[in-house]
């Protein structure tokens, strides 16, 4: 007679009546870190996808869609790994399509609406420059998946940052109207930059464990790169405003819910739909 399978013991249980919580904590830090990385890429990828068929020219349309594709590729890898780290049977699709707004861990910058093309390029410059510096460091992550995705994606993200820089310069140092729009776009996005450099308990723990990076360490480099682009674009850096924080803890603006309504509608209405 076949014996029954053993009953699952919770992670961290020693089986001797004691409970070692460190394994559970390590897993949760990895899960949170992967969610933050994956959600940033997913939400910005979805935003860029909204431009499809609406961009000022077919060349720009292709650029925005291709950058969105790169980002959704990153999100797929990060969120699949998050699901595996969580160990509850959720994959990347389940995490992308079946979480509600409070469970998203992306930063505020990526959920900001596209606005006009200049506003979209302001967001792209501020985000891609940060993501490039972050991924350069994450290539040394002790987590194999994070290191591999970062090494692969950093080449793509470098290209995104270059593309955004060129447009910010062209529009800023362009006509009176393009300059005004570029400045407006920067003014909109500027207050969401400080959040990118926030080291909360999860980020600090992830950096200490070697899976994440210390973002504060490249703040000066980031500021110098942005300042150089703005100088060439003859644009003024906006005045520092009261920063908006909290995306990493699930506190989001009104825009994210609307984005999710569009993104999640089909898989939620027709579960397991395939084509």
């Amino acid at each position, binding site marked *: 007679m076949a014996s029954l399978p053993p009953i699952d013991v919770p992670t961290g249980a020693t089986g001797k009546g004691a409970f070692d919580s460190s394994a559970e904590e390590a897993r949760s830090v990895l899960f949170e870190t992967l969610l933050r990385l994956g959600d940033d890429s997913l939400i910005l*990828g979805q935003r860029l996808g909204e431009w499809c068929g609406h961009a000022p020219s077919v*060349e*720009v349309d*292709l*650029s925005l*869609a*291709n*950058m969105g*594709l*790169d*980002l*959704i*590729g*990153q999100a*797929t*890898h990060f969120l699949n790994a998050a699901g595996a780290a969580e160990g509850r049977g959720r994959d990347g699709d389940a995490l992308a399509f079946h979480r509600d707004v409070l469970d998203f861990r992306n930063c505020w910058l990526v959920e900001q609406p596209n606005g006009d093309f200049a506003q979209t390029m302001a967001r792209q410059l501020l985000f891609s420059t940060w993501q490039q510096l972050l991924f350069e460091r994450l290539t040394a992550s002790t987590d*194999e998946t994070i*290191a*591999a*995705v970062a*090494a*692969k*994606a950093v*080449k*793509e993200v470098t*290209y995104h940052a*270059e*593309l955004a820089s*060129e447009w910010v310069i062209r529009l800023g140092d362009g006509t009176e109207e393009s300059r005004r729009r570029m400045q407006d776009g920067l003014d909109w996005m500027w207050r969401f930059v400080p959040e990118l450099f926030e080291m909360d308990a999860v980020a600090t723990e992830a950096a200490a464990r070697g899976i994440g990076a210390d973002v504060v360490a490249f703040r000066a480099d980031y500021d110098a790169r942005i300042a150089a682009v703005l100088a060439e674009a003859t644009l003024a850096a906006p005045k520092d405003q009261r920063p908006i924080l909290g995306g990493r803890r699930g506190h989001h603006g009104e825009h994210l819910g609307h984005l999710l309504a569009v993104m999640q509608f089909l898989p939620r209405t027709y579960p397991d739909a395939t084509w």
Partner: protein
Amino acid sequence: MLDPEIPIVSIVDLGIVRDVSADRVLLTPTYTGCPATLVIETMVRAALDEAGFGDVAIETTLSPPWTTDWITESGKAKLKAYGIAPPTPAGTHAVECPQCGSTATEEISRFGSTPCKAQWRCRDCLEPFDLFKCH
């Protein structure tokens, strides 16, 4: 087996097939979000089945990341003959028009029909063409 999006070069020429052994085929995607990745996997599976290798596993790796340096010389020649300028080696910037061979060329757009290509134009023969980006 030919690439589904550039159907004149094989996936070996493109450097997508990293390793083949008796029990495993190892693939790597070109770009992180390349939509052809799944199609390629399906095609490899069909080709293996047809050749009677039903038990061979197909694995995907991200590391080391794919680079255009892995495109073979024959692959580059085929791209050029097809009208796609092959990637320029690192450090050089002269992009040669695949139609007339002129290097008087300019970028129209940083992205083309797929993530791996950019749109260029020849100032001599005036033809637009795709450039396989150095990556």
